[in-house]
């Protein structure tokens, strides 16, 4: 029989305000096996914890129940406290009487009764708890960063500086990401390329960093500290070692009219190409879908002109398998598709997204920084910016969240236009202007006050392309007037969303993802750069809309967490894992089939069957791989398989206690 101590927390008035603590204490005293009951205003405080520790020693307690907040909040705290005594920390359970009781019920009597029932269930469970001992697993001192944008690059640099090897996997032919496409950055208006490219070069030449561009994650195995990841390096058709980056190949390439991804389709590229001048690595790639050689077998001009003989039409995808201790997801965002926004006439060449506008105002962009209407190459006399296109919108085509960066970049765009061409009329239709951030509101006000950008509170209902100009029907809500006017160029502040591939990547890493495909943090406030899956970390806008400073700051935080992990030689593993009673196992293999981690195998094992030795084919659990989900336990009809910490008896005892 256990000797159980029950500790009931008031949590100030958080619990005590709704739950009659005295009654919970009194009731707990009468539960079987309960030897000691105490209450305290803040059990998680230093004093509260010592109280628990003291009681364990003084009353020789073998099991502890803490009736307080959610175990997700403080189970670790209390188990650590218990570990400082002679008690095994896994002899402690929590009853969640705050989040799942006092905070959700108003009636004091009901809440008190429930607090009692939950405490009772925890006591019943503890009766069947057994001491558990965590195992150890090794840490591979190498990190993998998925995504070579500003988040991935700066995170990789920080980790590499700490002395660990980092590999970056980037799906496009160059690192740099969305930031490389931008012209100026808010609120300082410094040139994006000027601050990004030095970092890219640093990453390229850092002895601890390996960059795999034009590559994707093929498969993931393993777990924190010990991932085995296979990377598919797609065939570039150009030998990275031989290429000097001279550019003769793309100068000669006869296929010149492919809408360039980097220029958002506004500029054209060749079939063999580097996405942009400062690309890293500065090695072209052949787009096999468009290349004549691949389509028809004829051509091969690039091969002819390539002096170092780097062109390799035969090149095949290469699979690289490597071990990593930590993985960082930094896959970033992309603008949403505007196919379903017919009312904004996006099909018109003179209606563009903000990212297209970035390319257009960029001196290295398709128009060499000149602002023109794509349709007739004329300079626009008036530009209309429409904000919140697809953001804060519950329709299927849209995103319900605020994309966060649009207010600021629209102010930036408006300002850039006015700065270069003071004669152009600039109108911005907005719902709200959101500018929290250092020097952000000042920046927006400058657009209005110094540059004369016309901000109109209202939205555009319909855009009509008349050929020579665009016609809009909109509303000015402050004037309560409908506006029907002509404009020459429309820029849509398009909502951003995570890149599509992140779902697959998250799936392979079993990291969770929210309904918008943004990565979920282990805790939104306290663990903001970790995914709930151990060893998988997050950086940049894959977590949610972020601007550049926020992304870089976050990437630094991610790096710190990764360094903290890689600095360890061994990891302590979760002891709540599957546990087999070999005597009962009949070797049917059902558990093996459902294990998501491949942690179960079957071996002929010598079994002691009532004193008789017998060789039987039974399940064997790999304790480092098992994550403790319990799929095998329920699959096993005989109950040979059980789960430590959530055993059949423990859960049954909880059910019984609750239903009493």
């Amino acid at each position, binding site marked *: 029989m256990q000797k159980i101590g029950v500790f009931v927390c008031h949590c100030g008035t958080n619990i005590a305000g709704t739950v009659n603590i005295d009654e919970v204490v009194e009731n707990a005293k009468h539960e079987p096996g309960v030897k000691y009951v105490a209450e305290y205003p803040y059990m998680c405080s230093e004093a509260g914890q010592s109280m628990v520790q003291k009681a364990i020693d003084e009353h020789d307690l073998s099991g502890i129940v803490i009736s307080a907040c959610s175990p997700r909040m403080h189970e670790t705290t209390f188990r650590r406290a218990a570990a400082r005594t002679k008690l095994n920390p896994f002899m402690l359970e929590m009853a969640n009487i705050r989040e799942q009781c006092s905070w959700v019920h108003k009636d004091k009597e009901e809440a008190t009764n429930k607090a009692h029932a939950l405490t009772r269930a925890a006591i019943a469970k503890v009766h069947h708890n057994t001491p558990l001992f965590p195992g150890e697993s090794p840490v591979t001192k190498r990190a993998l960063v998925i995504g070579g944008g500003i988040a991935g690059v700066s995170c990789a640099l920080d980790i590499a500086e700490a002395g660990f090897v980092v590999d970056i996997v980037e799906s496009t032919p160059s690192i740099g990401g969305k930031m490389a496409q931008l012209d100026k950055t808010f609120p300082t208006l410094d040139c994006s390329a000027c601050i990004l490219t030095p970092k890219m070069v640093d990453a390229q030449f850092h002895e601890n960093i390996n960059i795999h561009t034009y590559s994707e994650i093929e498969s993931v195995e393993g777990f924190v500290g010990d991932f085995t990841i296979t990377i598919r390096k797609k065939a570039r058709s150009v030998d990275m070692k031989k290429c000097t980056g001279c550019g003769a190949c793309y100068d000669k390439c006869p296929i010149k009219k492919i809408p360039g991804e980097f220029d958002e389709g506004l500029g054209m590229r060749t079939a063999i190409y580097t996405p942009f001048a400062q690309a890293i690595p500065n090695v072209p790639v052949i787009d096999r879908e468009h290349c004549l050689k691949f389509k028809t077998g004829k051509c091969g001009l690039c091969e002819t002109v390539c002096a170092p003989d780097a062109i390799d039409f035969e090149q095949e995808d290469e699979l690289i398998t490597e071990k990593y201790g930590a993985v960082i997801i930094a896959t970033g965002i992309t603008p949403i598709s505007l196919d379903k926004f017919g*009312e904004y006439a996006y099909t018109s060449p003179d209606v563009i997204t903000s990212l297209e506008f970035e390319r257009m105002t960029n001196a290295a962009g398709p128009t060499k920084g000149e602002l023109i209407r794509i349709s007739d190459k004329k300079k626009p006399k008036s530009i209309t910016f429409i904000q919140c296109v697809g953001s*804060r*919108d519950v329709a299927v085509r849209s995103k319900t969240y605020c994309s966060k960066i649009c207010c600021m970049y629209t102010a930036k765009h408006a300002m850039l236009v006015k700065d270069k061409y003071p004669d152009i009329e600039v109108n911005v239709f907005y719902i709200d202007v959101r500018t929290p951030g250092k020097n952000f509101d000042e920046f927006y006000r400058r657009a209005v006050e110094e540059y004369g950008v016309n901000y109109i509170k*209202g*939205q555009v209902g319909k855009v009509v392309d008349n050929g020579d100009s665009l016609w809009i*029907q*909109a*509303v000015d809500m402050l004037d*309560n007037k*409908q506006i029907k006017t002509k404009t020459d160029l429309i820029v849509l502040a398009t909502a951003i969303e995570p890149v599509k591939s992140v779902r697959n990547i998250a799936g392979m890493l079993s990291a969770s993802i929210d309904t918008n495909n943004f990565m979920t943090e282990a805790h939104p406030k306290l663990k903001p750069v970790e995914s709930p899956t151990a060893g998988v970390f997050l950086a940049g806008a894959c977590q949610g809309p972020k601007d550049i400073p926020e992304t870089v700051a976050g990437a630094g935080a991610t790096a710190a967490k990764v360094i903290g992990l890689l600095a360890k030689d061994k990891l302590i593993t979760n002891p709540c894992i599957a546990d087999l009673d070999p005597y009962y196992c009949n070797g049917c293999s059902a558990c093996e089939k459902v294990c998501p981690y491949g942690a179960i195998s079957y071996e002929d094992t010598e079994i002691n069957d009532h004193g008789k030795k017998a060789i039987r084919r039974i399940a064997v659990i790999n304790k480092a791989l098992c994550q403790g989900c319990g799929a095998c336990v329920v699959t096993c009809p005989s109950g040979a398989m059980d789960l430590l910490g959530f055993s059949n008896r423990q859960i049954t005892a909880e059910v019984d206690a609750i239903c009493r």
Partner: protein
Amino acid sequence: MHIQNDYADQIRLISGSQDLKCMKCGRCSASCPQYEEMDVRPHQFVSYLQRGDIDALMDCESIWKCLSCFACVERCPRDVKPARLIEAARLLRIRRQSDDEFITPEQVPALLELDPDIPQQLLASVFRKYVK
């Protein structure tokens, strides 16, 4: 503000619309083909309802001006559906007092004599819209 009174609740019931979802973006008014004709504008329907000023809504001209073209419904980013609100106000109005002076069945033959091309559909809609 979210005033509750009988009429306001009735509008909420009839329309099935959630006025609190509105974020005052104005896309309804920007889309409305009858905006200029209206005294109370589509984006204001919501404010009237939130204020509980249903009498004013029932007495406004807009209830006869809305064409039920559903442009606002289609484009509303918050699923508030202003057309449903104004339709609910119109229903309340004609339930209280049908606008018999607008059209009566007796007038139909004369109308048809004037313009024999008038489709039945037009008459049917008009009766649905104006008469109890």
